[in-house]
């Protein structure tokens, strides 16, 4: 009953999907990707707004890590990379990082491959070739210790930290008990909980990294927002029953459960440890999802109370509504109703429902974001473009 299957990759990781990814290195060639998408709708064609115009070392690190990380993601079986030629993250610079994924990759550059129309034609043909190639790969037994589930919250309301994140926390503990890995980020939503998270660190070093990460997030919030930083606990939050920043953040971090924290990874960095992992990433949902996907997560749970439909390319996202009203109002977008806790459903029963759905999704059932095509790619930058 708990048997799960996936696609084994050459590096030893396992995907729960077998996608052919079509990825631009830079926004200048997004139109080429859109043409390929119309011709080969079965491929996962992603556009984004990055690839050039930022030169700082941190921005470059993030750019290369996210683009290559998406190719590395275990749900990707093969990739078509479309470059321009003169951009920062050009295919020559990107290739060494992508090569390590040991996947079939075909690379094109608009400036060398006859312009946009010719490149789109070649890219589409390559995508069809790769789809045919990966189609025959069988699903095999997937060990739980190769599963990396990410936990995300966005468009939160007062019930998010009471229903949805509590249910996701119970699921996180179950997953860690099975030997799987759970990762969550959103450092701004950890402010006020450094003592709680650090106490759960597996050693002194991890504890120090947790404290430093949250201190940086707190300082950055204050530097950018000034006095408004105190609004991280807003009058609206208080009306909703939250009394302190620690209480609000507890509601956020609860989605990771109560396990020992084994590692802190940087934004988009792949964890080396298993069990519960924290990511030093931003609170903004879209950017956070990219970091978690680039870290190798194959599946995401995403709680929402206000209701956001956003998913992520090549990554099944399971939407958990924190209240029955939004579950009913956005039924086509929601997979789980954690608002059922309010109607008296026991937490253990809801968790069992989530485990059951998770196993079906791992084994191939589409989530609402997948079925609806709600994927979006956006990722973090530090500086404005020049």
């Amino acid at each position: 009953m708990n048997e799960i299957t996936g696609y084994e990759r050459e590096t030893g990781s396992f995907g729960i999907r077998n996608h052919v990814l079509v990825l631009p290195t830079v926004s200048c060639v997004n139109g080429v990707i859109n043409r390929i998408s119309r011709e080969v709708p079965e491929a996962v064609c992603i556009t984004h707004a990055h690839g050039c115009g930022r030169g700082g070392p941190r921005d470059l690190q993030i750019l290369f890590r996210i683009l290559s990380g998406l190719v590395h993601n275990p749900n990707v079986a093969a990739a078509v990379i479309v470059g321009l030629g003169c951009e920062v993250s050009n295919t020559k610079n990107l290739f060494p990082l992508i090569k390590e994924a040991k996947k079939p990759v075909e690379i094109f550059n608009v400036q060398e491959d006859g312009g946009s129309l010719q490149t789109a034609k070649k890219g589409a043909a390559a995508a069809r070739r790769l789809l045919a190639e990966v189609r025959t790969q069988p699903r095999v037994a997937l060990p739980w210790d190769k599963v990396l589930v990410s936990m995300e919250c966005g468009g939160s309301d007062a019930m998010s930290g009471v229903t949805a994140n509590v249910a996701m926390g119970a699921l996180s503990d179950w997953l860690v008990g099975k030997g799987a890995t759970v990762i969550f980020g959103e450092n701004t939503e950890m402010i006020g909980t450094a003592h709680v998270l650090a106490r759960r660190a597996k050693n002194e070093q991890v504890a120090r990294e947790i404290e430093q990460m949250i201190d940086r997030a707190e300082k950055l919030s204050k530097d950018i927002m000034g006095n408004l930083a105190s609004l991280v606990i807003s009058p609206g939050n208080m009306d909703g029953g939250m009394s302190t920043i620690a209480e609000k953040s507890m509601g956020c971090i609860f989605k990771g459960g109560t396990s020992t924290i084994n590692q802190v990874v940087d934004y988009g960095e792949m964890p080396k440890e298993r069990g519960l992992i924290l990511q030093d990433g931003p609170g903004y949902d879209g950017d956070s999802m990219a970091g978690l996907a680039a870290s190798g997560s194959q599946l995401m749970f995403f709680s929402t109370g206000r209701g956001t439909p956003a998913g992520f390319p090549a990554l099944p996202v399971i939407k958990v509504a924190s209240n029955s009203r939004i579950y009913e109002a956005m039924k086509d977008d929601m997979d789980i109703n954690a608002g059922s806790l309010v109607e008296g459903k026991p937490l253990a029963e809801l968790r069992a429902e989530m485990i059951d759905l998770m196993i079906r999704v791992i084994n191939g059932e589409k989530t609402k974001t997948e079925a609806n095509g709600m994927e979006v790619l956006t990722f973090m930058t530090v500086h404005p473009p020049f």
Partner: protein
Amino acid sequence: MKDNILVIHPRDNVAVALRTLAAGEQATGKGTAGFPALEEIPASHKIALRDISAGEEIIKYGETIAVSTRDIKKGGWVHTHNLESRRWKK
């Protein structure tokens, strides 16, 4: 009878109201014998699971989220009027 409060962690001394409780209404939830709400508890706000003395820690999610500033009776409303944050005092 349907649960109308949620105890998140066994160590907690407050529970979350799953809907607005009227003064005098019986609060029921897993892990608690029923007890009356002493005053109106708005939906998703906190209700004391036992008597809490002034200066005692308020525990939710199994963790300290605040410190009480006055005695709070079991069944009382726990919010900014009777607790304070340990950090970010502004």
